[in-house]
């Protein structure tokens, strides 16, 4: 029951993120900056929840099954959020204070595939996190890979 609703949420998320990005010919600079701020805030929410799970995985925080499951559920929910308005054309590293590379808009299929990988990895994490510490540790690697799967091609190096 829970499993199938998760799957549904994942598929829904994948479909939603796969929808077209807003055309931006007429977006004013403030709107572009707002989109960048929203993206960065969203990333902070990932980091906040990953912080707890990573602390447990590294052995710095005692493993707590229900807290781990809650944080993982947050990540899975965050990954499935509709991001259509997050990525208006022109909100890239060449125009604004962001590391988002223009390739995002020229390779939108690859960008969306990378996002779908995060949805899948966080769903697996949600299933594993409450089981035990070893399962949590195992699932964290794939989440890290899926983050890198988008950051590597689409984020400007510092």
């Amino acid at each position, binding site marked *: 029951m829970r499993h199938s609703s998760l799957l549904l949420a994942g598929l829904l998320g994948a479909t939603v993120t796969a929808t077209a990005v807003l055309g931006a010919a007429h977006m004013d600079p403030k709107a572009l900056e707002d989109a960048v701020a929203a993206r960065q805030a969203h990333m902070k929410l990932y980091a906040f929840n990953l912080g707890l799970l990573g602390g447990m995985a590294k052995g710095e925080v005692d493993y707590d099954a229900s807290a781990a499951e809650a944080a993982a559920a947050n990540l899975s929910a965050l990954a499935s959020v509709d991001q259509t308005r997050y990525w208006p054309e022109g909100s890239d590293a060449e125009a604004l204070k962001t590391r988002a590379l223009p390739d995002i808009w020229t390779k939108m299929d690859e960008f969306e595939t990378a996002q779908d990988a995060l949805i899948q990895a966080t769903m697996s994490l949600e299933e594993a996190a409450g089981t035990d510490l070893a399962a949590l540790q195992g699932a*964290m690697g794939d989440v890290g890979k899926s983050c890198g799967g988008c950051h590597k091609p689409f984020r400007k190096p510092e």
Partner: protein
Amino acid sequence: MGAGRRGLGAGLVMLGLLAVGLGAYWLLTRPAPLSGAQLSGALAAAEAVEAGGAATPGASGLSGQQVFDAAGCASCHAAPGAEPADRPVLAGGKRFATPFGTFVAPNISPDPKAGIGAWTDAQLMNAIMRGISPGGAHYYPAFPYATYGRADPADIALLVAHLRGLPADATPSQPHEIGFPFNIRRNMGIWKRLFVDHDWVVANAAEPQIARGRYLVEALAHCGECHTPRNALGGIDRGAWLSGAPNPTGKGRIPDITPRGLSWSEADIANYLKTGFTPEYDTAGAEMAEVVENLSKLPETELKAIAAYLKSLPAGSEGTGDGAK
């Protein structure tokens, strides 16, 4: 004594000096391959290990696959933009812009024409550990043979066996794009004499875990090739080991990973190499993402050894700007 004879004498002296000069150049730039004993010992050891199956670890504890992952071969030799699933295909083609020109990673897949399929084991060992081609030419140090030269030859023999089992690809290698005097490969013999030093950079590693980390970092993972500054001729500045360097692509800096520049705990470092997550839950980017891709396949004990080694480095080593040994 006629003027003609004096002229002839001076000419002979000039010719003599030229001959001595050429002879000295020839000697100084001559390739220095592995000895026959080193080669036969390593290859025999590898053969004995392989008899137990491809995943059997050698004397150092690493299997051929693990040496391959620790040495990061796929980071450079996989085709540019290859998906993780395609990374065992070492078709080459990735470009590396440096102050000396652009190097293009060659095809090292087992294809007999485009790759290394027709090379002997000894030729591959000398290529990897001594930077010498089957024809006796010097390789450029964009290929980190100065690092691999510190490895246990038996590990490199296992690596050679592993390379032979990877998928073949017929894509021809592309030439490097470099200018004078670096375009004359023979000159790299002098570079090797000046800058290749197979001694450990960290001379004392009494603790077994730190010694293990030293082996992984200094002999296989070649962290120092990017994280250590180089002098004007591209020689590694051992006095500033792992203390960060300008990015050869010209953009930004490659970070200091000595305790001066990296405040992460050992667990943080091991976790980063396993998952790509920084302690702030940002993720590895650019080249480091590929390093993590490779190193994350190693057992956790190996990643912890790398972390212990990095934390043991002297903090605040200053670059001397002099890479010569």
